[in-house]
Each structure stands twice: as C-alpha cells, then as structure tokens.
C-alpha cells in the first residue's frame, strides 16, 4: 500500500517536543519527591530513639513519647483499603461487564457520564458523606454500642465508592480489548452470553483486570481526606473495623495540619511514613504495569 501520509515537516515535531517536556517535568517531580522523602526520613531514622526494626514491628505509635511502631497505622491503612476493595472490585467489575457486554447504547450514554460525575466529586465531600451518612447507617444496622462514631469500616466503604468509577472505566477498557475472535469462538461453540462473559472474556482479560485492581488498591491506600474525617484520629492496633483507628495518611494530615515544629521527631516521622506509602504505592503501580504489559504481549 502506498504511503499517503504527508511528509513530516519541522513544525509537526513541535507539539511532540513540547509534550515531551511536560512528560519530563512529571518524571523530575517524581524523582524530586523521592529525594526529599529519603533525605528527611534519613533524619528520622538517624534519631537515636528510632531503630528500623522497632519502626517496622512496634505495636505503638506516639512519636511524642518515643513510641515508633508503624504497625497500628499500617494495619488501619490496610483495613480501610481491603474494605474498599471488597466493595469496589465486585461492584466495579459488574458495572464494567454490564457496560461493555449488556448495556444498550442508550443506557451507556446515560450511565457513563454519571460514573464520571462520581469520579469528579472532591474527596472532602466523600469524607463528610462517610461521617454523616455511612457511619449513622452502620450504627443503625449494627447498633450504636458496636460501631464507634469514627470507624474504619465507614471510611473503607466510602473509599470503595470513590474508586468505583476508576475500576469500572479501566476494567471496561480491559474487557473491551479482548480480541473479538475469542468472543465469536465462544458463541460458535454454543456458549450463552453469560458463559461467554464469565468463562471466556473475563479470564482472557484477567491480567488487565488485576492491573486495574492493583492500581485502585494503591489509590485506596493513598486516600487521605476520607480517612482523616471518618476513620479516627488516634493510632490503634485493632482488627475490629467498627473501632476508630488512624491510617498512615490520616496521621500525616493530622500532624501537618497542626503545624508541628521543624526538626522535631514528629515532623521527621511524617516523611518516614510518606516514604513507606511511596514505596507501597510505587511497587503496586510497577507490578500492575508489568502485569498489563504481559497481557498485551499475549495477543499481539
């Protein structure tokens, strides 16, 4: 086939170059953040009261009185994130399947923008939604004696709602990129729509879907405003999601909101916690990229 594209001129490189510079900025910012986090955390770990092993395994977190165990914060972070995933993944996946396999063009045209509106709500609004709607609802269901006013369950459920549009949109992309031949082959073998969807399409899209879930998990772990408002303001190591507990991000926002003194161990501790968060979410993002790359190779 003859090449009918216009020969590239100098000006046609301009947009590419400009956009490359913008992409470069994002890389520089990422490196800058990592450098600052590492430098300030070094100050924290250099403090004679702090040792790395105690930091990773300690069961109490109160830097003011030299208790530096990250477990209570980490535990609360994972509690809220896992609850969020328990809501977000099944619902998000169902929405994605419905949108890509079942919905008529008309319902799609309504449902997609509504989902996008959900994605545009500021997280502070979600935070108050958790505090003034989700918590009273949970207390109504399970009893006021069981559910504390600040609790990780309420925050987790609302984070689940927050990541729902993200999961739905990206899962829909993953399902949509399954080759048409697979679908047709399944139908040709006599599969019903339901069988085709759940036995052929979803397994085929699984690596794309797992990448989606990992990314939304890292979003849930980093979520701040909702947990700061609804999850509680005191570090506590508990397995009960109806009790108050403070997450890593919740602690960071509480301490920095109070304008702590520079060079105090409280101040340096928030950078160490930031570094932990950075490592967790960075790893999750890398893993999900690896998974989705693998998935693209399979069908190319």
């Amino acid at each position, binding site marked *: 086939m003859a090449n009918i594209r216009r020969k590239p001129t100098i000006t046609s490189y301009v947009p590419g170059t400009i956009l490359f510079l913008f992409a470069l900025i994002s890389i520089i910012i990422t490196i800058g953040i990592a450098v600052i986090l590492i430098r300030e955390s070094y100050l924290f770990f250099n403090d004679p009261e702090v040792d790395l092993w105690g930091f990773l395994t300690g069961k109490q977190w109160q830097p003011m009185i030299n208790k530096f165990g990250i477990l209570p914060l980490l535990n609360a972070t994972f509690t809220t994130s896992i609850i969020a995933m328990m809501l977000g993944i099944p619902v998000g996946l169902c929405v994605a399947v419905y949108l890509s396999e079942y919905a008529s063009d008309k319902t799609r045209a309504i449902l997609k923008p509504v989902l996008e509106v959900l994605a545009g709500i500021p997280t502070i609004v979600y935070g108050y939604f958790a505090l003034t709607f989700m918590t009273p609802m949970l207390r109504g269901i399970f009893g006021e004696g069981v559910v504390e006013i600040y609790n990780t369950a309420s925050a987790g459920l609302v984070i689940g709602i927050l990541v729902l549009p993200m999961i739905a949109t990206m899962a829909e992309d993953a399902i949509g990129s399954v080759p048409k031949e697979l679908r047709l082959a399944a139908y040709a073998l006599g599969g019903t729509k339901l069988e085709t969807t759940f036995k052929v399409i979803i397994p085929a899209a699984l690596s794309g879907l797992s990448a989606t879930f990992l990314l939304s998990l890292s979003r849930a772990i980093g979520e701040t405003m909702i947990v700061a408002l609804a999850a509680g303001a005191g570090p506590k190591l508990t397995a009960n999601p109806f009790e108050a507990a403070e997450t890593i991000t919740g602690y960071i926002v509480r301490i920095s909101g109070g*304008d702590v003194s520079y060079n105090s161990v409280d101040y340096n501790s928030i950078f160490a916690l930031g570094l932990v968060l950075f490592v967790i979410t960075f790893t999750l993002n890398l893993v999900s990229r690896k998974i989705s790359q693998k998935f693209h190779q399979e069908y190319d």
Partner: protein
Amino acid sequence: MAWLKIIHFSFYRNTFLTFYIYRKCKTTSTEESMKKIVVLILTLLVISSLSAGGKQEASVTAANQDEKNLSWMEGPSVHGLPGVNPLKVTGNIITAGSSTVFPLSERMAERFKDEGYGGTITIDSIGSGAGFERFTVAGETDIANASRGIKQSEIEAAHEIGRDPIEFRVGTDALAVTVSKENTFLKNVTLEELAQIFGAAARWSDVNPDWPNQPIQRFIPGTDSGTFDYFAEEVFNKQVEPLLSASNVQLSEDDNILVQGIKGSPYAIGFFGYAYYAENADSLNIVAIEGVEASAENVDNNSYPLARPLYIYSDATILQNKPQVAAFINFYLSYVNEEVVDVGYFPANEEAIERGRAAWLKAMGL
C-alpha cells in the same frame, strides 16, 4: 498514546481534566487531540500568568497602604486607650494559634469588620504551640493566640528574629471536661480520678467499681494544643506519657472533631475550652471537678481547679509598623469584655486587662 495512558494511570486524581484528555485521546485521531491538548495547555499558561500579574499589582498597593499612619485614632478614649475608627484602618492582619482563643478572636474580628474595617484578618486555629512557632521562629504572623503563657524558650526564639513578645490578657477559660448527654454515671470527678480516666485505666470500672465495665473512649486536643499542655500540667504534673499512651485515645487540633466523638458514645469523655461546651450544651454534659462546677462565680473566686488565662501576643515593632495590628489590639482590649461571655468564656479580672492596655500604650510610645 501509551505514555498518556501511563500518566493517566499514575496521576489519576479524579479530575475532569485527566478524564477529558484521556478520553479525547482515545476517541479522536492523534493529531487532532495533540492540537487540542496544546491549545488547552497554552490557555492554562495564559490564565495562570494573567492571575500572577494581578497578584503582583495587589501586593504593591498593599505595601503602599502599609505606610505608618495613625489616622485611625479617632473618637473618645475607651478605658484609657485612644478611640479606634475601624473605617480608617487598612491592611491585612495575620494571626494564628490556640483553638481555644479562636472563637474569641473570631468574634472580635467580626465586630471589627462590622464597624467598618475593610481588610482581611486571618485567624488560623492550629494550637498555641504552633501559633508561637509561627510568631517566634518563622515570624509570619502579627499576633499569636495562646491558651497558655509563653515559654522562656519561645521568648528566646523570638529575640533571635528581633521580636520581643508582649502579652495581652483577653479572658479566662474554664477547661471543660465533658461527656455525652447519654452518660448517666459521671457528674463529678476528683483530680485523681481524672488522672486515671485519661491515663492508665482501660475501663470505667477500673476507676470506680460503680461505673460500667466498658472501655473508656478518650477524645483529647492534639499535642500542639495549649489545652493539651495545660491539662498535662494540671492533672499529670507536666507528664505527657500517661495521656498519650492511654488506650482508645484520639487526638485532634479540631475541637469539633472531639465534640462529635464525645457525643457519639455514653462511654466517651474529653476536654476542651469552655466555649465549645457552651456551643454544644444541648448534647454534652459538663462534669464538675472536685465538686466545683464551671461557672462565672467559681472562675472568678479561683475555686474551679481548671480555670486558665487566655492571651494574645504581639510585638512593639509590629504595632508601630502595622497600624492595622495596633488598631485591632486596641479594639480587642477595649471591647473584649462585652463579647467574652457571649462567646462562652469568662472575663479576665480588670487588673490583668489593664496591664495589657498599659503595655499597648508603652509599645506605641504614647
């Protein structure tokens, strides 16, 4: 468009913008979307540079207005201070500090504005310690609000940046220990019981066998708060360990979060400035300390054990260079007693306020 997808993935922040770019790139041809993005970015750049230019102009005019002038001194003198005409006061005032003093300063600022002041007063409610930090180390604020006296170390820090803090007494707070209205067993505590409740005891029955066998849920002001310092000083002999290592303790610089938490359970307890109790008296009960209730009378005759002074701090150089700050503090000291009860605190005795007025006159060289 693989890289755009990466950016979309890693910088997903729920914004319409990312969504817009991402979807556009997926649905339209590459070149067209490139053009659109370039136009979008250029528009953003133009808008941001325009707004930056606007800001610069504003700061220049503000600087002109900051020139020393005392034209605001008008009208009859009040309690020995020159009269203030807020209409003639210009320029902004920056204050930060105690969340206990915050409602009072906010009320005085509102009244100052109602009477004609056209500038902006920033009042950050960040805790006394943090307020002093901004006033004495960073030197960002004109006034520090505090629910405790300034420490020697903070005075020294201020000297290092050429500031000499002046103390103005503005009122008295009766620190309120409160429980939910649903709590039926706690009406009165001794200071020893208070130390157990906020310290080592895990359950109410550990403190007093007549009380329920339920975990104590504690809601206390954050460690940067003057209220926290004051409580540790009065109840725990300046020890903070017992307060912080207690189980089920939640800390916040935001007293409204504490109020919400205490309201939430009959087994919750907390403490904060009296004004926050007064504001929520329909859902909270205040606990008497050693049989003494927090009332104007008991605060006046010093029998309430947790009564404490409220202050604002500034500096002579600031007062002289920023007439708006001098005018505001003058206004504050002149009328605070008319507002303080309504805000939920108690008037300081006249002698203490008078010392502040004398300090103001001295700082202004009048």
